[in-house]
């Protein structure tokens, strides 16, 4: 390969949503989107958290693109995106922040700070047997939000730093050269 232009580094991964409500309802800790997550509590109780999560998810989607048919997404490797975004968005490092719950007002906050009357809305009893013999506990108002709900960009190809776009494009890459028949 090689046409003089460097091949961009990429990350291949998926967006993962971890929710205690989804685990309580289905036994699965994670799902692939907010829309696919099962809910337990009334939306009027959880709305402040979900509104922040929706902004977070929107940004994760905004800065990655679908990569069919594998059910995955791809994005530029972080270092390259930072260069692009710093130049395009007047210095605001948007991309870096999409992976940080702080931006959405969730990191370091207790659930009760965002959702009044939380404890009264919890199911009784507040714990139950989960899959694989574990005990699930409903989070109390004093729990950290990110203990109960979290979005994550999760790389699926390791080591993630070494994925080159030419690995994905193969012979369609503009840098592709047919292997020499003789040595």
């Amino acid at each position, binding site marked *: 390969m090689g046409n003089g232009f460097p091949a*961009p580094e*990429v990350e*291949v991964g998926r967006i993962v949503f971890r929710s205690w409500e989804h685990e309580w309802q289905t036994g699965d800790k994670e799902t692939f989107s907010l829309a696919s997550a099962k809910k337990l509590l009334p939306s009027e109780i959880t709305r402040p958290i979900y509104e922040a999560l929706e902004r977070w998810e*929107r940004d994760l*989607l*905004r*800065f*990655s*693109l*679908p*990569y*069919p*048919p*594998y*059910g*995955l997404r*791809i*994005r*530029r490797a972080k270092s390259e995106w930072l260069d*692009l975004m710093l130049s*395009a968005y007047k210095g605001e490092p948007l991309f870096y922040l999409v992976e940080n719950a702080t931006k959405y007002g969730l990191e370091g906050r207790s659930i009760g700070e965002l959702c009044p009357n939380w404890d009264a809305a919890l199911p009784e009893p507040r714990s139950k047997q989960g899959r694989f013999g574990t005990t699930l506990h409903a989070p109390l108002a004093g729990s950290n939000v990110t203990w109960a709900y979290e979005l994550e960009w999760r790389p*699926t*190809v390791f080591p993630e730093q070494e*994925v080159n*776009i030419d*690995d*994905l*494009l*193969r*012979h*369609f890459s*503009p840098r592709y050269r047919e292997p020499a028949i003789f040595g």
Partner: protein
Amino acid sequence: MIPVDDLISELGLIRNALGEETVDPSRRPRRRGPRESPASERVSGDPIFDSGQWDVTDPDLWEEEKQRARRAVEGDGSAGQSGISRTGIEALAWYVSFHDDQRAWGVYIPLSSLALMDELYLSNLRIGRDRRLNLAWSALLFHEQMHFAVDYACAWFELVLRAPTRREFMARFKGQLPFAGLTPSEAYLEIEEAAANAHMLRQLVRKESRQVMRTIEGFVARQPPGYKEGLRATSDASFAEATAETLRSYFAIWAIEHRLDFGNPKTDWLRLLPLDDESAGSECPVYVINDLDEIGMAAGSLRLIQCISEIVETADFERQFRRQDAEVRSDWGRKKEEIKIRLPSPPRFEKLKDWKPPTWSLRLRAGHRAHLRPPDPGMTAWRAVAIGNHKEMGHG
């Protein structure tokens, strides 16, 4: 709209942008075994259907084919074992990309699919069979036109980026995995099928009744993942998002390669698709495949009428014709020439309900009509049997 032939010429200058499909484009995805491909014919304009000689000659085969088609359309697990290569609407009609076949690209619709779709999904409608066949035709065509529109948008980007976007994308669905551990999770681009079915629903709702739309929605709801999500993508916003996500899926890698911001939600991707462009309908070739014998029906059971190239005037017609004034006689002469090329849309040319033998009415000037009867089996000429004003012709 830039003609596709011009796009093909330019794409030919981009390495790997064009390929050569080795499969006969008229081969039906649910075909059972290696048989000779049936004849296909190009269709232009809105065809008219005549099922006046509907005849199931092999009831066992007809029943077998109905079940086979149902399994294919609905993505039944056992369908794959019977050699069916596509599911959803693509089991009934399909689009061959100009990226893969520069000579025979276009939309293919078998007559057998119209008969089967009518029988399986439309027969509860309280409208005549010819009208239902026309509905089946429109539904299949609208769905496939979305695939053409996506193909066209791909070509546009390929010319801008000098990149073989579409063929790289399609290769992922049939090629080797770029990394160990990756597993394909979809056999076709589900969001594109949702967008195609949504486009079909959005077009049909403009002219069809609520009862018809409920039936078509039921047809969509029974299709496999992706296809059935078309029901949730019919609003302007959700259709735009389904379209955007379809194009992002095709272009993602190239967006990264060229540092393009394809994730921007304020981009109107629909503008790239020739869906509302009237010339798009004529730019994309549509072929009908005459394969009724393969599902146990007589060859003339379902006729698609595009034009009437040969007319014999009966003695009664000639007698009535002589009584008409000069303008009506002249109009008949003109119409005879016009229908050699293309038939006017209903009601200007329509089948008369419950008339025996089957009779068609062609509107002439000043409320006059000519009545035509289709060729008898084995014959090619239509017969002009009567002419007069609409009262004389029994139109009330």
